[in-house]
């Protein structure tokens, strides 16, 4: 078990910090269905942490617990050493957590730029009146926020679709726009729910590079769910493996790869 405060050094020589998010004995039930059974793990400052598992293992539920959308019946979530009480989504966003969704959740009729700007909403403080009149604070705020959004647009190389309505974009680009919106809020912790689902090889490679670049450039801590094993093993520093709501493995990609229980869960054994 790693020490709470002290970090570790990754295989490629990055210094990982102390614990950001600590999940302790989480159990989550939906009526009679137990989605998550007594799971504990942590996410550390600056690392890329993956959650993997077969379909229905409870990965998305876990991500929703991390984001504060689901409140577990048992167990505690500690965020930066503080025990977390139930919160509203905007409170989560203000804490510096941003996410993307498995099924893209963008405003289809709005342009890419407008979508990305919504990522800044929590930071805007001007009132309705000054927004409507476009005077003083509202104007200044808009310019500042636009600048941040433009940097994200440049970073993710989506300048060519800046003014395009999202509905007209292909799937792979929509995923990138969603990442852009999440990045626009300048998150400390970024949650990605299957960022590469349904992409072709080239799109996956692009997305992997963006994820690594985000982590490298802004020092953002990233927790992601992904099905593509090749991607997970290449990208992440540590991996949690889930199956039927239980945690069956936790460690570096190499450790997880050689874990018998993980192999069984993926290749299948008779359950008797």
């Amino acid at each position, binding site marked *: 078990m790693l020490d709470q405060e002290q970090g570790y050094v990754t295989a490629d020589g990055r210094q990982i910090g102390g614990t950001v998010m600590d999940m302790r004995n989480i159990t989550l039930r939906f009526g009679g269905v137990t989605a998550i059974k007594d799971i504990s793990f942590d996410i550390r400052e600056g690392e890329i942490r993956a959650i993997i598992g077969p379909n229905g293992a409870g990965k998305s539920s876990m991500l929703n617990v991390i984001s504060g959308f689901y409140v577990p019946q048992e167990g505690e979530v500690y965020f930066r050493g503080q025990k977390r009480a139930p919160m509203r989504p905007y409170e989560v966003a203000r804490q510096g957590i941003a996410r993307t969704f498995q099924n893209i959740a963008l405003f289809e009729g709005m342009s890419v730029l407008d979508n990305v700007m919504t990522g800044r909403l929590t930071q805007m403080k001007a009132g309705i009146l000054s927004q409507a009149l476009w005077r003083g604070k509202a104007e200044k705020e808009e310019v500042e926020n636009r600048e941040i959004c*433009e*940097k994200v647009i440049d970073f993710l190389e989506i*300048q060519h679709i800046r003014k395009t309505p999202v509905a007209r974009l292909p799937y792979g680009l929509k995923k990138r726009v969603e990442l852009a919106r999440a990045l626009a809020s300048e998150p400390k912790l970024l949650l990605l729910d299957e960022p590469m689902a349904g992409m072709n090889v080239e799109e996956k490679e692009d997305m992997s590079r963006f994820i690594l670049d985000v982590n490298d*450039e802004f020092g953002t801590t990233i927790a992601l769910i992904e099905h593509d094993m090749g991607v997970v093993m290449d990208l992440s520093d540590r991996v949690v493996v889930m199956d039927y709501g239980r945690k069956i493995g936790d460690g570096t990609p190499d450790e997880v790869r050689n874990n018998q229980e993980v192999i069984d869960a993926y290749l299948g054994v008779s359950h008797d």
Partner: protein
Amino acid sequence: MTEPLNGENGLRSVPALFRRNAKNNPSAPAYREKEFGIWQTWTWTDAASEAEALALGLIDLGIKQGDFVAIIGRNRPSLYISMVGIEMAGGVPVPLYQDAVAEEMAYVLGHCGARYVIAGDQEQVDKVLEIQSDLPNFEKMIYLDPRGLRKYDHMHLHSYAGILENGRAKSGALATELKSREDALNYDSTCVMLYTSGTTGRPKGVVLSNRNIIEAARSSSEFDKLGAGENVLAYLPMAWVGDFIFSIGQAAWTGFCVNCPESQGTMQTDLREIGPTYYFAPPRVFESQLTNVMIRMEDAGKTKKWLFDTFMAHAKKVGPAILDGKSVGLLDRLKYALGEFMVYGPLKNTLGFSNVRIGYTAGEAIGPEIFDFYRSLGINLKQLYGQTEASVFITQQPDGEVRSDTVGIPSPGVEVRIDDKGEVLYRSPGTFVEYYKNPESTADTKDPEGWVATGDAGFFEPDTGHLRIIDRAKDVGKMADGSMFAPKYVENKLKFYPNILEAVVFGAGREKCMAFINIDMSAVGNWAERNNIAYSSYQELAGHPQVLGAIREHVEEVNRSVAQDDMLSGCQIHRFLVLHKELDADDGELTRTRKVRRKVIGEKFEDLVNALYEGKDEIFTETEVTYEDGRKGAISATLTLCDATTVVPAQKIAAE
């Protein structure tokens, strides 16, 4: 040589032109780039001071006079300015094609022995790092965009911003050194070295002096009356001589503004925002723009389509005449004015051509329909003929004497003659100094009197004095029966069809001509969509019987047109096939400037050529392909070989 060592008013180098502009037009825009959604401007003062800071930084890094510095990246103001900075510091800039794969880069970097490399971004840095063990002279790399490079070993890697900062900090100590190096530059010192694209064999390093660049820029600017108010969009490869002449030579000479697009994908939007007054593009850009317009018009509503067709037909009739200032009836003029308001104006605006005063196309022959389309809209599109060795300009079309089948009259200061074998030769102040480390090729190309062989066969039209280019001189061959074989002539005719992207014609020393065809995916794909033809891949579409049928019609039309020409009637295509893959520069089938390498293709697809000549109906083939990241794979296909009807020329019938 009797020419003076200095140019006009002591302006003997490109850095001196930068200094002059900074003094005379300090706040006029020199370069612009769209970044973060806004056009950022470098004034001439900024440009000169950035070049100076880089020069100081490079001197501090240890650059010696005559050192080669490679520049690799997309069109960005800082990369243009850095070329001038390198010259200031006494070095020689060598811009490379940014899409070249690592091995191609290794040859060029090794050949010139570049000590420093200025790379645009991580991708280029990676490529150079990959080959650095083969480059004994390579010492340090400077990168412009720091993204993704944080973790790299910075022993031999410096950020561009860091070099500038260091240069500015050391300006006190190094100012005298810089001044002496700058003063040492004269009209005959090297301004830039550009590598030819290598249609045949290895690329050659063409050394161009300040005289070449400045004289070429001066006379061409005067020819078209270019002034400081022009705006151009720089989007063609920086390694190409044309871009150097337009974006540095002419820009520095006249003081006009060069605009760099935000990214490759935003080029069309940026073009519209800038509205250049002076525009340059190879024919394929005009072709693909026209194809896009036509595809979108196919999808437009009935009224719009009718408006477009009606007014375009009228424009075709009178547009070019109006542009050339010929007399046109009042009624036609009124109808044209209405068309300008309804169709031509908005279309030009969409294409970004509203302000174009002078447009040029060169590099390849342009289809007459494409050429006439733009001219009929009122865009003054002209042709020029040139090459790297001439600092671009050999012949140009003056306003009012524009035709699609000639390349114009000799540019000012250029002498052109045709030798007894029909090859075009020229001599001009822009004529290159030498091929670097290749005196044999230099002597082969340039004779002691300064005449340079272009390698192109052509002739002057007796009545107009305009030059007409037939083909590459060495490609013009003989067929088995002794008649003339000019593959390019036929290929160009084929390529004028929107459905055909590339064509390769074989037939030297043979009885008959055969052709490989590459379909244009966007045009054919759209046609397939409208006709409910299902396909899942390029390969499947290329092999579709209806596509083959359409291509056959094109080939037969070309045959009919070729048969009209007595000299070339033997070049009709008897059989052809549609290739299962797009010809690609990464596979060595095209040059980086996208010219067909006929010999390479002939060898690589020998089985297909043989099958065509053997009269087979079908052939199975497997081809190696290179992906963008350099990995290799193979694709296989069964191709259908088609026959095309040929026409017996009228003369022959009479003779028999």
